[in-house]
């Protein structure tokens, strides 16, 4: 056992240093920056487009005193539902030829006019790209009714603030569970795919024979998998630290302002890290086994797409655990080895018990060992052409 671990360490050390000390690792660390930059660039463009193109106004051609009335009513509505959600009103002094004014306003692009409100407050007419029952029409009806009724004093309402209610906590935790799963899924899908091509280097450099003669194939698999895990954890530590820094700098209340999971942040983060490792090791072991069968980079690329779909399928299974970790589906997702880490990270956000995590981690470790062992055996048999080559039924017949 010690020799196996020592051999795995030698392989892992080589792979880790080869990965981390290569120039391409800088790009690996900067990887998450690209979607953020893209998001920032396209978000800014989108926001500008939204500001410029969105929220067409309703042109109001009432008498000035009546516009003041409905403007005050609109402000009361905006106070209740928010400025952005309240319909925009734009005043235009009524002209002699109302029909011509209406036509001209509806054709105007600066500002864009959705409809023209004319007539009087008690007898108004709305013309434009609207129909009865539209939210815009309903809002205008509320505004007009409010404008007609004299302003009433706001009734007293005592408000007592509590930090959380049961409803908001459950909602927040479900959100944390979902986010935890999503992050775990995306990080794993990005990193474990790299494992697919891990043995191509040894095969193409012909060093596989030297290694296979010196150490057990299990050690080769374990070393390769843990080296990539270590490189990934290094990357994640950099990303999480940078992310935490950004949240603390830009988000109100910093990290403490995020919805706390059931087990608390420290335990949740520790478990999330462990489940990432397990998710990575489980999927990585499976992918290493599959990738080891490939002889060329092209074969690995061909394998990538079905592998990605399989991961999405596993993620789909794990998502049923969010909100209902104790349901039959939730338990099935927690028991099925490949979806177990993602299902359990959701559980860590939603349930305070610790023992299911201990059991789950042991269960997942067992499966990592089994998959690695099977993978090594398959590699010896199919790639190194070791062991009996004939099918079992032919051997039986012989």
């Amino acid at each position: 056992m010690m020799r196996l671990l020592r051999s795995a360490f030698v392989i892992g050390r080589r792979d880790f240093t080869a990965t981390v000390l290569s120039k391409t690792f800088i790009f690996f660390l900067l990887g998450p920056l690209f979607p953020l930059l893209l998001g920032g660039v396209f978000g800014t463009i989108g926001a500008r487009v939204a500001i410029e193109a969105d929220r067409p106004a309703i042109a109001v051609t009432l008498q000035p005193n009546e516009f003041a009335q409905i403007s005050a009513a609109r402000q009361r509505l905006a106070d209740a539902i928010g400025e952005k959600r309240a319909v925009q009103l734009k005043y235009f002094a009524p002209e002699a030829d109302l029909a011509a004014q209406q036509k001209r306003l509806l054709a105007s692009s600066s500002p864009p006019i959705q409809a023209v409100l004319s007539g009087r407050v008690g007898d108004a007419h709305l013309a434009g790209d609207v129909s009865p029952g539209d939210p815009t029409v309903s809002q205008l009806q509320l505004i007009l009714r409010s404008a007609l009724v004299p302003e009433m004093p706001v009734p007293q309402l005592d408000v007592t603030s509590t930090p959380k209610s049961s409803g908001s906590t459950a909602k927040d935790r479900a959100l944390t569970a979902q986010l935890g799963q999503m992050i775990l899924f995306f990080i794993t899908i990005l990193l474990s795919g790299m494992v697919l091509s891990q043995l191509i280097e040894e095969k193409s450099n012909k060093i596989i024979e030297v290694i296979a003669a010196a150490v057990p194939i299990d050690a080769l698999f374990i070393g390769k998998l843990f080296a990539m895990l270590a490189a990934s954890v290094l990357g994640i530590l950099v990303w999480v630290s940078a992310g935490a820094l950004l949240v603390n700098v830009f988000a109100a209340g910093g990290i403490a302002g995020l919805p706390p999971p059931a087990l608390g942040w420290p335990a949740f983060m520790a478990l999330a890290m462990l489940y990432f490792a397990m998710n990575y090791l489980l999927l990585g072991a499976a992918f290493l086994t599959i990738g080891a069968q490939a002889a060329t980079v092209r074969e690995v690329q061909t394998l990538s797409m079905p592998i990605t779909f399989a991961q999405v399928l596993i993620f789909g299974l794990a998502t049923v655990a969010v909100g209902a970790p104790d349901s039959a589906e939730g338990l099935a997702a927690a028991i099925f080895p490949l979806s177990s880490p993602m299902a359990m990270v959701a559980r860590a956000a939603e349930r305070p018990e610790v023992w299911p995590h201990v059991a789950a981690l042991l269960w997942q470790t067992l499966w990592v060992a089994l998959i690695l062992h099977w993978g090594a055996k398959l590699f010896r048999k199919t790639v190194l052409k070791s062991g009996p080559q004939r099918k079992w039924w032919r051997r039986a017949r012989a």
Partner: protein
Amino acid sequence: MLRQAQHERIYDGPAVEAIDLVKDFGETRAVDGVSLAVPAGSIYGLLGPNGAGKTTTLRILLGIIDPSAGSRRVLGYDRPIEAAHSVGYLPEERGLYPAMTARDGIAFVGALRGLPLAEGRRRADQLLAQHGLGEWAKKPIRTLSKGMAQTVQLLSTMVHHPRLIVLDEPFSGLDAINQARLEELIRNEAKAGATIIFSTHVIAHAERLCERIAIIAQGKVAFEGAVDEARGRLRPIVRLRTRNEDGPWRSSIPASARREGAEWVFELPKGGPEPLLKALIDGGAGIETLAIERPGLHDAFVAIAGDAAAAAMGAVEQAA
């Protein structure tokens, strides 16, 4: 004094034993009942044409692949991987990590065999300096010439002072100077107590280096034993040049004698040289020259493995 690592148990038997090894790849039988015993401290050659089953036999002995049937013992271990720390292996298809420096490449293989990395680097520097590659120690392997890279890989098989060194076609791809250097290196390792097994299709290397050989043809061992024993299977060769073309002396040379230029070439008759000499003199041959030669390993190989295998070896030798 044979090499014996401190942590290894004392073992006095043959370095390698194979008993009735069989290996099937699908319907093809690559190795068919190979049995051999390699004495500890010897230089042992596996001879045979390409496709004879030499590499597969070596891979089985090293534990890279398992046999379909039969058993093997390496340095006293039934599972070769347990002896891995005392074994060095140069595969036929050479390969190292191209981005690694020469010293790190050697130290890495040493580490695979249980040598601490720092010690491996120290020994790598020594070995590289001894073999004229000192200034290349810190250069990536990808920048080395093919011959240099091959030397680096060869040194990596020896960095941990193995008790058993297995070299698969070590001379292929080397120029004459490097072939001579490699022969010297093999002799030195054997002198230091290591057991060397190498496969080759070039009989001359085996003849110069080996004490024992196995001739493999079509997956089977056609001969296993000492080189002298292989040669001993053939009678000495007589090369005779006479002044007289014909005469009574002609009845004293065998009917199978052949002409090579002006010489008659034939196996020494069972009676030995003296009766032959007397018959030639009495028969009036007029002996100009008479030489009795020990048959070479090539002749033994032809006799043992057959003409087809010898022709295949010859073709490969010429190509090499």
